[in-house]
């Protein structure tokens, strides 16, 4: 039998598509309903650590307490870090160039990753005070906040 040494590399073209529905849970459901219906941003309070966490979650990762209490945070916040993204990917909801930032909302001890807009790329800086712009049509997802913009 002859061993084949030369061959044309053959590619198998595959696409994985999963239509997923992720349940937001006890805290996530409260957060998204408040955001969609009242344009309020909720965090979860850990009474033992005396910290307010965004995103709201049902367990404190530091002390392992079960968290049940939500508090309204923001809507104003401060930019902790940011980047100007120059490339496009189908998973991005905005067209490049756009700005990502981590924003610490007033009253929260952790930051929210989101978009910044209505600001010159050269003027964004750590410490910039920002406020959210809510989507006119809100569907109960993180894009109900369209982006943050300077005060």
């Amino acid at each position, binding site marked *: 039998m002859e061993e084949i040494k030369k061959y044309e*590399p053959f*590619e198998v073209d*595959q696409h*994985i598509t999963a239509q*997923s529905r*992720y349940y*937001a*849970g006890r805290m*996530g459901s409260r957060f998204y309903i408040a955001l969609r219906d009242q344009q309020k941003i909720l965090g979860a309070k850990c009474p033992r650590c005396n910290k307010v*966490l*965004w*995103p709201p979650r049902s367990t404190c*990762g530091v002390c392992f307490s079960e968290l049940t209490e939500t508090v309204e945070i923001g809507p104003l916040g401060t930019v*902790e*870090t*940011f*980047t*100007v*993204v*120059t*490339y496009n*990917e*189908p*998973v*991005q*909801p*905005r067209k490049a160039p756009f700005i*990502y*930032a*981590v*924003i*610490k909302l007033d009253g929260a001890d*952790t*930051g*929210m*990753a*989101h*978009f910044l807009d209505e600001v010159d*790329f050269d003027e964004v800086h*750590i410490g910039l005070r920002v406020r959210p712009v809510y989507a006119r049509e809100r569907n109960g*997802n*993180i*894009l109900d906040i369209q982006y943050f913009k300077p005060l």
Partner: protein
Amino acid sequence: MADRVAIVGIAQTKFAPKRVDVSCGEMAYEVIEEVLRQTGLEMKKDIDNAISCSHDIWDGQTISNIGITDVIGGHLRSEEKMALDGSTAVYYGTIGILSGEFDCTLLMAHTKMSQTNRNIVNNDAFDPIYTRLLGFDYTSAAALQVRRYMYKYGITPEQIARVVVKNLGNAKLNPVAHQSGNLTVAEVLSSPLVASPLRKLDIAPDTDGAVAMILASEKRARKITKNPVWIRGIGACYDAHYLGDRDLADVFALQKAAGQAYRMAGIKNPRRQIDVAEVGDDFSYQELLWMEGLGLCERGGAAKMLEAGATEIKGRLPVNPSGGLLGGVPINVYGLNRVAEAALQVMGQAGDHQVKKDVKIAVAQGHSGFCGQHQCVVVLGKE
């Protein structure tokens, strides 16, 4: 219970942008066959445990290791996969041998980054409820981390560009590296902006390849090689997931993982006792950040050490003499390659990129998740 665990064999593919000539299994077999030949071991007779390291979404198969059981000796035998960085395969392989259950463990990490789109794959690492829909990937997340690090410690783009200059220069001496070059700081800083302040040359390129390694108990190691590399210490630690949960310039998880590994290895002063380090520079700035987390200098001090030449191949504490990940190593393989390169330094078999000083203790670091959420540290040593 085994007293000590040694690395007794290492094989790496040449890392290449696109291996169209082989499937994942065939690529894995290249390094497995080579490491068995090198050590004179037989799969059925000698290897009593196997740990692979790959990723479901990268390979396009859940669970990714079920597609390679034949080549890793998993047919009707035990094989487990670490869906984390390759350094954790060393961690769990070591624990298995220390438990007394196994004597001779084959580790293998593989990924072909050319087979899919890295940003779309890595977007799936972000939690689906609050973050994924924003479109994040590892590069945009890393850009948030480097900005915070530069702000907090006054690090300049020029200082970070020097990591690229050093590592791509070192990569010229490493035959398995995928890219290398004589670059200047100005050239690095004029490469295209990807996610500010990160530029194209700050980012480890897409690469295909695999690494295999054999770990053995002391008793077995003595029979296999005259030049065993001892695993002196291991440590691993997780940090919080969400991008806003931690100050991204902090390195608490790495400090804890390193502390654990150093305690086990009896290292009290890493700056003096460690001779060479291979760290996970998926992005240029991470070399500096992880050096600080490993305690090789004070917080914010890594850039000065680099500028002083201390981390060059001929320096006081060479860091990434292999060229690091910027030279081109696939994701998931990152950490096993870090441990392999550190071990080659201890063996004195790193060839042209062998450091000039005598290497008694080497440290390797790997991480997985965006912004180094999970950290793993492996301390290696001579007799």
